[in-house]
């Protein structure tokens, strides 16, 4: 479902997908670790990394600065989030406030339950691609 959802969004409206550049570093680190431990060949690591970057190129990106990092810190202790998730949640909240002024709504897509609970507590719409059906996901993303 996660793949279906992302593929559908990227093919129809990539500009509606917003990512934090940090998630790219984390994902490539995981791929690199799989390669370094001998689980995937170098050629596959390179192709996967290149495809990931090419897909990210079409998306909107939420930039990170010192202020963003500092403002994410209270979310760590309040919701027991790791540093990355606190940063992503703070960025999502910032974008949510901006979009609201234009009567647009943000849907935070994640499979980590702790992050989802924190986002819902903060009033964000959320979508867990591992627990939703394609029609439900499409309906939510049309809101």
């Amino acid at each position, binding site marked *: 479902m996660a793949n279906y959802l992302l593929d559908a969004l990227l093919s129809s409206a990539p500009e509606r997908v917003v990512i934090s550049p940090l998630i790219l570093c984390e994902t490539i680190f995981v791929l690199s670790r799989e390669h370094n431990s001998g689980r995937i060949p170098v050629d596959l690591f390179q*192709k996967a990394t290149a495809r990931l970057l090419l897909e990210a190129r079409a998306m909107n990106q939420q930039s990170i600065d010192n202020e963003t990092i500092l403002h994410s810190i209270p979310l760590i202790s309040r919701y027991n989030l790791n540093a990355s998730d606190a940063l992503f949640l703070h960025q999502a909240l910032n974008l949510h406030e901006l979009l609201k002024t234009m009567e647009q709504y943000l849907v935070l897509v994640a499979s980590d339950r702790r992050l989802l609970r924190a986002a819902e507590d903060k009033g964000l719409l959320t979508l867990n691609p591992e627990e939703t059906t394609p029609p439900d996901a499409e309906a939510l993303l049309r809101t």
Partner: protein
Amino acid sequence: MERNTISTKNFPHPKHITDPLMLKAYAEALKQKHKWEASINELVREVLGLKGDKPLDPATVPSAEEIRKEMNRYIPENEKLSDLLTAMREE
């Protein structure tokens, strides 16, 4: 073939923007988009080991679906990338 070009297809045409504030925001957003795409292009070239002015052709990179299929030959399907990410963050 794509030659490190910058896509603006998802941006409205500037002639439709009349508010100076919106125009300024549009120009800034376009500038940031250019920077983002140029940085990504440079990174992809580096990852693929493209030398000199050899053009970047995204069509030569397998699709996400093709990569997932190949990945499944090495990593069991039940080991999701998102789970590996979560585990890495919790380490």
